[in-house]
């Protein structure tokens, strides 16, 4: 009887799973008891009440309406906003720069592809923190003092206190511009659908590209220009010692963004190169022999197949950018790690709650990025029958 039980796979599986659960529960109880004992010893009350206390922490770069007299909960959101802000901009810029370097790497021009290859080998083998510190303490610290700012078109000024840009006096016009841009994108989506349906029905091409350029480039540009003209601008004025007016983008942001973009672009370039190289030569040759023009080959044959290879690694690069934005903590860019896990934790001592909330932010946004990319991946995936 026992012998039969010993050799029964189901019984053995059940036994091991129960054993593992008991072990884990015991370990958890051990840790939790230690933690609560240690917290009682240190005089820390657990719970999330601390979130409603006034924070008293000054933040040099705020996108929300946070001020030092607000609650710690508001501080948390100010940090989250800064994290998302730098991550999204870095994702966009790194994608553009990475694509350009990746294409340069594939170029038949020897010098161009060698230079791009050298860039990739250079950035991929150096720690990101090195770039963050280098940009902050090496490059931006070496920029001129505010009174000797480098000016561009007497509107944008760069100095060792950051980048000063004009700021709009009335931000609401940009909401209208955003609405117009969204409408243009929606219209383009409808046009593309109509063109695809028509092509399936009649085989005729519609000028989708021209319409797309109109709707996705010209309309947004026009909307932004009109919005920019409609509001007054607070222009930075070079004074005797400092700049007056304008909106100052702090040097920590500039350094972190520069580091994230230059570093991530090296990885994106490799993904782009790998994706395009993965489309076998026969595909291009077959398309050419069917009479497709080079532009059509690229659009209908190479890019769809290359994208399929590129999407999964691009997803992990975007997730890396999100996670790597926390490197700003090393130069005190006020992201969620440095504000909440750093300053707020120091002030309150609520280690467990604060760490859990901070990690939850990254897991949540990570899930969103993955979900978006999975949705996109499913859309472009090979349909097999």
């Amino acid at each position: 009887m026992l012998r039969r039980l010993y050799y029964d796979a189901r019984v053995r599986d059940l036994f091991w799973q129960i054993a593992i659960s008991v072990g884990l529960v015991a370990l958890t109880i051990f840790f939790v008891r230690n933690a609560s004992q240690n917290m009682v010893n240190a005089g820390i009350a657990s719970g999330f009440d601390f979130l409603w206390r006034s924070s008293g922490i000054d933040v040099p770069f705020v996108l929300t309406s946070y001020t030092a007299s607000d609650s710690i909960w508001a501080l948390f959101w100010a940090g989250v906003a800064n994290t998302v802000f730098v991550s999204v901009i870095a994702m966009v810029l790194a994608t553009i720069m990475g694509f350009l370097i990746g294409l340069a790497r594939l170029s038949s021009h020897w010098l161009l592809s060698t230079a791009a290859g050298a860039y990739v080998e250079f950035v991929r083998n150096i720690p990101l923190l090195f770039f963050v510190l280098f940009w902050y303490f090496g490059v931006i610290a070496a920029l001129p003092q505010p009174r000797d700012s480098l000016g561009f078109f007497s509107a944008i000024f760069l100095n060792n206190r950051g980048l000063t840009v004009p700021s709009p006096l009335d931000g609401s016009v940009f909401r209208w511009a955003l609405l117009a841009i969204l409408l243009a994108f929606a219209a383009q989506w409808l046009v593309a659908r109509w063109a695809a349906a028509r092509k399936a029905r009649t085989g005729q091409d519609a000028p989708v590209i021209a319409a797309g350029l109109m709707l996705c480039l010209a309309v947004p540009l026009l909307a932004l220009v009109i919005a920019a003209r409609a509001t007054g601008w607070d222009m930075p004025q070079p004074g005797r010692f400092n700049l007056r007016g304008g909106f100052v983008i702090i040097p920590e942001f500039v350094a972190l963004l520069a580091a994230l973009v230059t570093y991530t672009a090296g990885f994106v370039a490799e993904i782009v190169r790998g994706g395009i190289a993965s489309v076998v030569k026969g595909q291009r040759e077959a398309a050419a022999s069917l009479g497709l023009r080079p532009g059509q080959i690229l659009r209908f044959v190479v890019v769809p197949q290359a994208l399929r290879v590129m999407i999964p690694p691009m997803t992990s690069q975007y997730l890396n950018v999100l996670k790597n934005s926390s490197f700003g903590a090393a130069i005190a860019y006020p992201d969620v790690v440095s504000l909440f896990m750093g300053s707020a934790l120091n002030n309150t001592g609520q280690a467990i709650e604060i760490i859990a909330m901070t990690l939850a932010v990254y897991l949540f946004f990570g899930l969103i990025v993955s979900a978006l990319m999975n949705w996109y991946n499913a859309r472009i995936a090979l349909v097999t029958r």
Partner: protein
Amino acid sequence: MNPQVRLSSLALWRSRLFSTPLDSAISLVVLAALVWAFAPLVRWALINATWAGETRADCAPGGACWVFIKARFGQFMYGFYPAAERWRPNLFLGLVVAGIVPLFWLHGRARLALGLAALLALPVLGVWLLGGGLGLRPIETRDWGGLMLTLFIAVYAGLIAVPLGILLALGRQSRLPLVRTLSVVFIEFWRGVPIIAVIFLASLLLPLIMPAGVGVDRLARAVIGLGLVIAAYMAEAVRGGLQALPKGQGEAASALGLGYWQTTGLITLPQALRISLPAMTNEFIALIKNTTLVLVVSILDLLGIAQGSLADPAWVGMNMEAYLFSGTIYWLICFALSRWSRSLEAGGPRSH
């Protein structure tokens, strides 16, 4: 047949750079950009640089002051490890080399025996040699630093990450639903959070969850934190190898009557590890790059020492020298490893 056209080197360069008008234009633009970017750098770092001397006063303005690196070389390598005891890390490095190099020549049982002995003995020996005690002068981890510490953290976090990663990868493919779920949750959790946050977490939470009075060394916390995260990434690298293996391998082993651990240990895992070795090397490179993050809990690895040396009033304004020197070391280590990983990949897995 490919006609082998031999070009003289001049003609070769001409065909590379100036074969068409467009090519020529691109060449000129790229060359101009390279000269614009690198000429000042070369002038500063090599031509106008000062190599000999003792203090900052010996350095000529307008050029790099490599005297600074010379004066602080010991600190870049060992941190604040007492100069009289630096033979200990050196000896340990020698022992590691002596333990690993013969593995390339030995075969069969001798190789296995030496490998296992090195794997079991060296880590313990290393902690003893560096940390002291039992007859050696104790040196607190606070005084460790520089390149020595970078390598120490990378290797010891790797020693946690590789076995744990293998177990997690096996767990992810396990027949038992509980084991599978736990592995997936563990892997996805650690892969989803920033490493900098994990290092904060480890340095704050590890002492908290230990019984009162049990301290965890500051450096050990960072190593454990890094080890856990990299284990999750290692697990994914190993999983790639496990999935690349034809199913028949495991099934054939089962058909021969081998149990799970025999099948895994003797048949599937050795082959899977060989396939995933390049991916695992890449994770190890990422680990080396991420050791720099211990800076946020004030542990001074190579980059931390470079950063700290900027504050020395005797050597004001040596930012570029410190960064260039430490960056080159990181680059050399990671580049060598990535070349090795690529050569493994090109060699391909041995047939099974």
